[in-house]
């Protein structure tokens, strides 16, 4: 029996995406490296790695270690800087066939604004910005914004004034109350929030008594953090009205459905891309079957997790 293709399209702000499965920042490069292995035009959107005002070499190695059902990274926002990004990457995005969401990181309000204004001053295929206010691995990663409500709100509203494009604030789980940060992002004028960034973690080699990561602390990702991601999305769902993009440990279609049930409108797949850059396309094919089989719409699923009496 053949099904018609399900309508997987979703709306965030004024942008219509063909489907809700995006690739997460830092796990798909600038978006063009994987063309050999994946049909990127199938993806809902590509969120680029974080771009900063100046180029960054990133942290010294070791930068990465596997942990049970996850991994810890401390890359340190290695990137080419916004000027080279404009000259080298923006032209490549023309005709890529996938919405590009540019992730921006900064260490000050001015840096975020400068990067965004530089992109706004040129014409590009970028449909929106995801603002990294939650990188746990570098002092300059914007984490001071992501843990403070008033700074989150003022940064969001400063950026909102300067762009009509989609504005997504990426939230950290490493806070006492993620709902209040999400509310600040909404009050500042964000179109959506994405949650979660990596969870602060540490890994030690007991044989050498050394940390497995140069910077001692790093960001834990992968299936190990899925329960944390689900909980954060569900908490945020009850406190804001703008869409939530769920992130954290998604490796299959079931995980996508769980995030939507928890309150997400779209999702991002991160660490799983490292193992299989084609995994999002597989997830999408199965999501299509799931929607057809259960005769449901994505919108009706959002936040509809059943509670015990």
């Amino acid at each position, binding site marked *: 029996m053949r099904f018609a293709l399900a309508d997987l399209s979703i709306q965030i702000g004024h942008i219509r995406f063909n489907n809700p499965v995006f690739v997460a920042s830092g796990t798909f490069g600038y978006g063009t490296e994987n063309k050999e*292995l994946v049909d990127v035009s199938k993806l809902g959107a590509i969120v680029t790695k974080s771009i900063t005002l100046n180029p960054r070499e990133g942290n*010294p190695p070791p930068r990465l270690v596997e942990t049970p059902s996850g*991994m810890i990274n401390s890359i340190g926002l290695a990137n080419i800087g916004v000027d080279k990004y404009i000259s080298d990457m923006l032209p490549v995005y023309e005709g890529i066939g996938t919405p590009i969401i540019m992730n921006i990181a900064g260490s000050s309000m001015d840096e975020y604004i400068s990067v965004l204004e530089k992109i706004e001053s040129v014409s590009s295929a970028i449909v929106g910005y995801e603002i990294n206010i939650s990188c746990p691995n570098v002092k300059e990663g914007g984490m001071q914004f992501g843990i403070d409500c008033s700074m989150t709100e003022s940064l969001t509203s400063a950026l909102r004034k300067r762009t009509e494009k989609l504005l997504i604030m990426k939230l950290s789980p490493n806070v006492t109350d993620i709902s209040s940060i999400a509310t600040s992002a909404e009050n500042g004028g964000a179109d959506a929030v994405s949650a979660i960034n990596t969870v602060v973690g540490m890994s030690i080699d007991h044989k050498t008594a050394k940390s497995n990561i140069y910077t001692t602390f790093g960001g834990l990702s992968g299936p190990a953090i899925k329960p944390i991601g689900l909980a954060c999305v569900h908490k945020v769902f009850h406190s804001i009205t703008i869409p939530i993009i769920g992130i954290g440990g998604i490796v299959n279609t079931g995980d996508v459905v769980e995030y939507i049930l928890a309150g997400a409108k779209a999702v991002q797949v991160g660490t799983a891309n490292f193992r299989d850059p084609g995994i999002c396309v597989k997830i999408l094919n199965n999501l299509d079957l799931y929607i057809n089989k259960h005769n449901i719409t994505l919108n009706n699923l959002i936040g509809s997790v059943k509670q015990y009496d």
Partner: protein
Amino acid sequence: MIIENAMIVSNVEIAIGIWQMTLLAPEVSSHYKGPGQFINILSADSWEHPVRRPMSIANVNGENINIIYKIFGNVTQQLSQKVPGDSLNILGPLGNVFTGWKTKRTVLLGGGVGLAPILNLYESCPNSTLIIGARTADEHFMEHEPGKNIFLTTDDGSLGVAGNVLTVLENLDFNDQIIIYACGPKPMLKAIQHFAAKNSVKAQLSVESYMGCGLGLCQGCVIERQNEQMKKHSYHEKYTLVCMDGPVYWSNEVCFG
């Protein structure tokens, strides 16, 4: 590069804790460029170990790829339990290749798990001097044959030359027509780098690194370049990606900290 479900043809222990696996991989083998390249393997479908493991290619014969691995942790343990007919998901071939060996005299050094690419290169240049180091005789699977320029070393002196690969290297006669090729643990590569600089000998080193993807996406596998002219703000001048730029580097290109 390609992702392929390869079929395991054989999987045998060739020395204590050291295994050789032959994979039928028509797709990946057809893209193979030469000694130095590697594949990233998945030991299981489960997500208990989410990250692929890099394994140097020890040999490509038609559609068959050989790897040699040492039992080190859960993943290599799982690998050793696989039997002919099982499948193994592999990504590859990845990385660059050893160069210059066709025209020069060569000395090849392998230590620990760094045997595979060196044995691969040895098949292409069998007139090389081959030096293989291990801790004990149990970890060796070749014969110590100085008459054929094959030297085995052991830390405890239980087989071949007592000492490490440097013990043999330091007693060889060198001239500028010789290139050293080496793969092994970081302290060994650091010592060879030092030897090459001191004796003005060229050396290519195959570097090992933690790796998240093998595709340049995660930026996790970097090592530091030797680069005195680095700009204050730069990108990929201070560090190089082992998965894409390596794993083979000239000894004066990289720093081992």
